[in-house]
Every structure is written in C-alpha cells, then in structure tokens.
C-alpha cells in the first residue's frame, strides 16, 4: 500500500475545476506529470496557478474533476510524506529558531531527513540558530525550502518560490534546487519569471484564464505561439482568410496590418504572397518565450491557441 506505484504519474489532474463565487479560477485542467520531470507552471496573475497547486496539495477540494499524486488522493500522498511544498505568502514562526522549526516539521513525518541535511540541501545550514524574525526575505525562503525538503518528498511543489528574492539570491536558490533534483525528484514550480522556466524546467505548462494554454518543452511552447511572427500590410484581406493560411497559429488584423503567428513562417509567407500579391512592408521576427507567453495569454482573443501536445 505504501509502495509507489511505478506506473502512476507523479501528478495526474483530470477535468479539474474550481469556482470561488462568480469567478471560475480553474476551468477544466488536464495534466499529467511523469516522475522525475521538472515542470514550470507559467501564467499571469489570476491564471489559476495557485488554485491548481492548492488542489494538488489537497489544501482545497475541486468542484469537479480529480487530482491524483502517485496514484493516490492528495490527502493520502501528504500523509505518506510524498509531497513537500513551499506555499505562497507562508511565514515562519517568530518564536522558534530555524533548526527548531525544521525539527518540528520533521517530527511530524514518518521518515524525515536529518534536520542538518535538509538545511544543508536548502543552503540554510548557516541560519540554523537564527530566529525566523531575523531572516531576510531570501533567507526565509531557503528555510521554507528546507521545510519542504525535510520529509524527503518524491514530489516537490513550489508556488512562486523566488518572488521575494533579489536576482543573486534567486540564482543561489535555483542552484540549490538544481543540485537537489539531480536525485530524480519530481518538481512542479509556479513562476512568473520566464527565464526561470526557460533555464530550469524540462517542460513548461502555460495557464491562462483557468485553463492550460500550452504544454510542452520550452521550444514546443515557443512554436505553439508561432515560432515566428510575420507582420505585413495586407490590403483587402479578411481575418478568416489569413487564419486559413498554412501553419498560422494566431492572427491579429488592425487597419489592414496583419500580425501572424506561424509555426512555419516560410510556408506561411509563401502562401500569403500567393494569395495576397499586394502584401507589403513584410517583417519576420523570432518569438521568444516571452512573446509566446504574451501571445498565448492574450485573453482578448476568442480562439484557443493549439497546444503543442
């Protein structure tokens, strides 16, 4: 019963939905994370990242759909110490030292790491004797990382772990995190720093409006948003015609100027010129993850961009 089912996904979400009053925070999320994957959950504020994470952790119950962690309910996975998490806006207890805080959490788990080892892995060993109210924002995050690690969890969930850090601290944090996950831990982290997703994640899941807008490797997500962007003045063209061109994944037409996102800009451009010989002022630009992010999370669009997988 307590063995990990080798075929089970580390995280499996299906049809997950959650409403808060009139707001649908998560609106039908399906996601499967394989053991050992490092996945970045990207998206603007209000995209539903934290709500999704809360349901994976069992901190809130979905209105519809299911969340499974290693084939178990989140509550069971938590009880077995399989999940370690750094929550957003969490604080530490001011009346305890760092070592005591981590020991307290360790004492609640069945098979914890030695406190010193957890502190060391999180790069917080030099903070052991410090009270929580004497820590900087970045130091507090490292301690909270140690708390997440102390149960030696198979799945690590980090909700915007570097939000309060300056760039140097952020780099150190990811270094510690990277060394730790070499051991094959599954990691899901939410972030709004694109470079963090680009640099540290095997896979990027982009959320917007409570749904998954794109899911794949960084390269795939870029492609999903249009590997390139073609801008041109196309007199007389209708948006539907432009969208019908091959490999077009997105289209924005304003006063005769079109901005096309394309997965294969060469093919799209040839077709564009064949169909609209009057097209002029043509520019082609490569889309970075940032523009992919903007394209895919642009909520003014009615259509859903094609996911990469």
């Amino acid at each position, binding site marked *: 019963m307590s063995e990990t089912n080798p075929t089970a996904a580390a995280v499996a979400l299906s049809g997950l939905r959650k409403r808060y009053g009139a707001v649908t925070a998560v609106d039908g999320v399906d996601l499967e994370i394989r053991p050992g994957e490092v996945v970045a959950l990207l998206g603007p504020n209000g995209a539903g990242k934290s709500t999704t994470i809360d349901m994976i952790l069992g901190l809130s119950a979905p209105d519809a759909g299911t969340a499974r962690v290693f084939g178990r309910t989140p509550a069971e996975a938590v009880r077995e110490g399989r999940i370690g998490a750094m929550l957003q806006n*969490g604080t530490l207890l001011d009346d305890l030292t760092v070592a005591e805080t981590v020991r307290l959490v360790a004492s609640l788990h069945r098979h914890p790491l030695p406190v010193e080892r957890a502190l060391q892995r999180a790069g917080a060993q030099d903070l052991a004797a410090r009270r929580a109210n004497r820590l900087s924002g970045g130091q507090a995050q490292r301690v909270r990382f140690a708390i997440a690690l102390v149960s030696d969890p198979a799945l690590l969930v980090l909700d915007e772990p570097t939000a309060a850090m300056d760039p140097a601290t952020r780099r150190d944090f990811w270094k510690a995190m990277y060394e730790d996950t070499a051991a094959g831990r599954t990691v899901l982290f939410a972030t709004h720093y694109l470079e963090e997703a680009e640099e540290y994640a095997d896979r990027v899941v982009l959320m917007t409006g409570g749904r998954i807008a794109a899911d794949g490797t960084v390269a795939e997500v870029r492609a999903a948003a249009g590997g390139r962007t073609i801008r041109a003045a196309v007199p007389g063209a209708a948006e539907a015609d432009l969208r019908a061109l091959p490999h077009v994944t997105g289209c924005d037409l304003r006063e005769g100027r079109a901005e096309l996102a394309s997965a294969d800009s060469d093919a799209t451009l040839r077709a564009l010129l064949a169909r609209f010989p009057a097209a002029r002022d043509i520019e082609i630009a490569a889309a970075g993850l940032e523009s992919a992010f903007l394209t895919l999370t642009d909520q003014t669009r009615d259509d859903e961009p094609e996911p990469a997988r």
Partner: protein
Amino acid sequence: MNLTYTRIEIRRALRNSRFLIFAFAFPVFLFLIQTNVFVADDDPGKDTATAVIMVNMLAFGVFFAAMSNGGRLATERAAGWQRQLRLTPLTGRSYMLGKGVTGLLLGVPVLVAVPVIAVLANGVSLDGAQWTRILLGTWLGAVPFILLGLLIGQLARPDTLQPLSMGLSLVMGFLGGMWIPVDAMPTWMQHLSPVLPSYWLTQLGRGAVTGDLSRGLGLTAAVLAAWALALGALVIGRYRKDSARA
C-alpha cells in the same frame, strides 16, 4: 502524542514574555502583595485567608496560561502556518488535541511556584487531600478555559486577540472572583459572580480550605464540566467549519 512537537510547543510558550509575566510572574507577585496587604499577622483566620488567596492566584495562573495558549492558535492561523502543517501527516484533530495538552502543561509552572512560596514564605499547611483537591482540581478545572482560549484563537485575528483576552481577564478576574475573593465582594457581585466559569474554578480550591461561601465539589465539577462541554462543542463546530471551507 508527539513528544518532540509538544516539547517545541512548550518551549515556544516559555519564550513568550507575555506568558511568563501573566501566567507565572503576575500570579506569584499578586499572591505576595495580597497576602501582605489583606492578611494581618494577628488574624486568627490568617491561614485560611492566605490559602484562599493562593487558590485564587492558581486559578488566575491556569486561566491566563489557557488564554495565552489559545493566542498561539490565532498567530499560527494568520501566519499561514496551519496551511504548512496541513502538508504534514499531522491531522487537524491531533493539532487541536496537541494544543489542548500544551494548554494543560502550561498551567503546571504556576501550580508549583505559588504553593511552594505559600508553604515556605507564608507557612500554609494543608493535608494531602486538601492539596490534591486544590492542585489536581485547579489543573483539570482549567479545561473549559483551555477550550475558551482555543475558541478565541479560532475566531480572533492577532490584532484583536490582545484586547479580547485582556478584557476577558478583567471580567473573569474581578467579577469571577480570581482577583477579588468572594469574601470581599459586595452582595450583588456575589450573586452575579456564579455566572462566570472563573467563579467555579476558584470554588474548586476554595472548598478545600474553607466552607465559608463555598459550593459543593459535585456541583462545582458539574458546572465546570458543562462549560467544558459547551465550549468544546463550539471549538469542534468551528474546527469543522474551517476544514470544510478548504
């Protein structure tokens, strides 16, 4: 019961200066002052009067330990620490139970200190049965107050906590007979006082040292048990509501 967890909980409480002042130093200090001011050396009832003051201070000490214990619940709630704990195998029930046990243990220092001073400095002399009723009674009689503290911790925010617990201390202390012995109360207050559970907490010990203005042990225990049941139901109800909202 998790020993490491409980030990760290106790250590946290002992680091809190408000706890140390109000649940330990203040009752000791008040005992010394009241016995000096109100008990004359040539008073034939001096031993009883001293014992009554001791009993009241014990009640006040365990009362404030319970309030301070519940206060940590509010702090942990506001700090997001309860969410962190929900990611461990600790169940909500064990969490609340642990807080209850900690509340009981936090009453122990004052239950030791005041009697030791009363015996050594004031020559209070009581038999085993009297001591058992006073110490064990006051200790267990703290249960409804521990539940009251937890209820406040479930409801209050850290910034409303202090005025709330100070206000309650004043009412329970003066009207409920912990700071002023019933003997010193005007008649109208003597009639009003039994409304408050702190009156019955002081009665637990008072009955062991004097029959004057005392209630029977059975009635006292029953009233406190009723308070414990009512407050326990409120704590559990609130706890269920909190868990369901998740």
